[in-house]
């Protein structure tokens, strides 16, 4: 497998540094929020990781369609990478959302539409991984994966809409409101946008790495088939 291209090596360093800067910004540049206190500072990474999760989700759905049209296995590697990264980032987003909810609204979980949809999306991703695990033929694995990703890509937005309507008709007593209600000052907005930009770069870096890993894995799998014959 070819060594890391120089661009990627640069991205590694850049991503790490930028995350550090974003962290410092969230800690020291952004003001202290009056209602919730220090815990509000996790909001910036919560939004940014959710954003990366969304990027991964869209990438996975688009790539699934491309794969079905072209039947070129290289798209399968990309699709798997997108799902895995989206899975990890949404996990962080969900946990941060939960940590933020606890002191703010006294509950670890609010059945807020975005949070709930993210949790359901994680189940879809896990189902996707389990589906792939149960298939040995790489071609079939790729096809089924793509079909399921496509179905998920259509179903999850509908899920979000239905939970949204569910919540407006049925305000939940247990949980609190969502982040929509937060009034943000200029420096807060700046920190948030910066975090989103930083994590977009982190997304590209990790995506690239995961794709390389997938390509390497396919090579080794082919080699294994050749040797065992």
């Amino acid at each position, binding site marked *: 497998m070819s060594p890391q291209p120089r661009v990627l090596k640069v991205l590694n360093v850049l991503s790490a540094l930028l995350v550090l800067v974003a962290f410092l910004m969230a800690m020291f540049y952004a003001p202290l929020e009056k209602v919730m206190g220090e815990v509000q500072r996790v909001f910036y990474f919560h939004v940014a990781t959710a954003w990366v999760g969304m990027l991964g989700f869209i990438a996975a759905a688009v790539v699934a369609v491309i794969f*079905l049209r072209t039947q070129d296995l290289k798209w399968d590697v990309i699709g798997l990478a997108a799902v895995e990264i989206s899975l990890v980032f949404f996990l962080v987003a969900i946990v941060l959302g939960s940590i933020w909810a606890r002191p703010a609204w006294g509950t670890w979980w609010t059945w807020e539409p975005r949070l709930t949809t993210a949790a*359901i*999306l994680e*189940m*879809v991703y*896990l*189902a996707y991984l*389990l*589906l792939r695990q*149960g*298939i*040995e033929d790489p071609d*079939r694995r790729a*096809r*089924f994966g*793509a*079909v*399921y990703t*496509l*179905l*998920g890509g*259509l*179903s999850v937005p*509908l*899920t979000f*809409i*239905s*939970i949204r*309507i*569910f919540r407006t*008709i049925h305000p939940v007593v247990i949980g609190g409101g969502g982040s929509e209600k937060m009034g943000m000052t200029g420096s807060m907005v700046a920190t948030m946008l910066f975090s989103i930009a930083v994590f977009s770069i982190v997304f590209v870096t990790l995506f690239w790495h995961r794709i390389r890993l997938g390509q390497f894995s396919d090579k080794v799998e082919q080699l294994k088939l050749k040797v065992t014959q």
Partner: protein
Amino acid sequence: MDKLPLTTLRTPFTNQRPQSNYLRAVLAIAWKDLAAELRSRELLSSMLVFSLLVILIFYFALELDVKAREGITAGALWVTFAFAGTLGLNRSMAVEKDRGCLDGLLLAPVDRSAIYFGKAISNLAFMLIVEAVVLPVYSVMYNINLFNLGLIGVTLLGSVGYIAVGTLLAAMSVQTRTRDVLLPILLFPLVIPVLVAAVKASSGFLLALEMSEILPWLNILIVYDVIFIAVAFMVFDYVVEE
């Protein structure tokens, strides 16, 4: 695998127009399952017994007073349908795979999607039959009148969406190592809009709410059904390719 050209295969259909050929294939596949089931009644009996057991379990597990029971009716019904549905889907596809019927069907000179529609229609029929038994039984056991046109309509719409996705996913899961176990894992996250909308709409009809409140849920069901029937139709080929 290439589709065999019509001219090289002498079947009773080769002299007819392609459109009726397609419809005939769909109906033939659906009828094959229904006829087999009429004779053996294996699938329906297991789905029915299972559903009735779930309803019994709900009664004891939830132990609610009469007022509270009315509130959970729609939810309890749909949980029952969802679980019984996976039983039916699994069995229906497993039979194809195990007896090699699927390979035989794939050799037929007809568009692959006809297999999907045929299976979906028979799966839907089984699910509707089970629902037609469960609803009156539930009415009697819980002393709630479920003979509500709106409720029946919602049950129909929801079942269509559930079976549309379920048939496609069952065709996939039956080809994996984990088979039966995988279907609910694949199906349930995707079918949540149906469950949410069906339960809310059913409750709406049972509580005789304003149509304007029920309409959004009906819309979601219809949109879901249309989208997923269309997608399943387009994508089924990829699922049964060799």
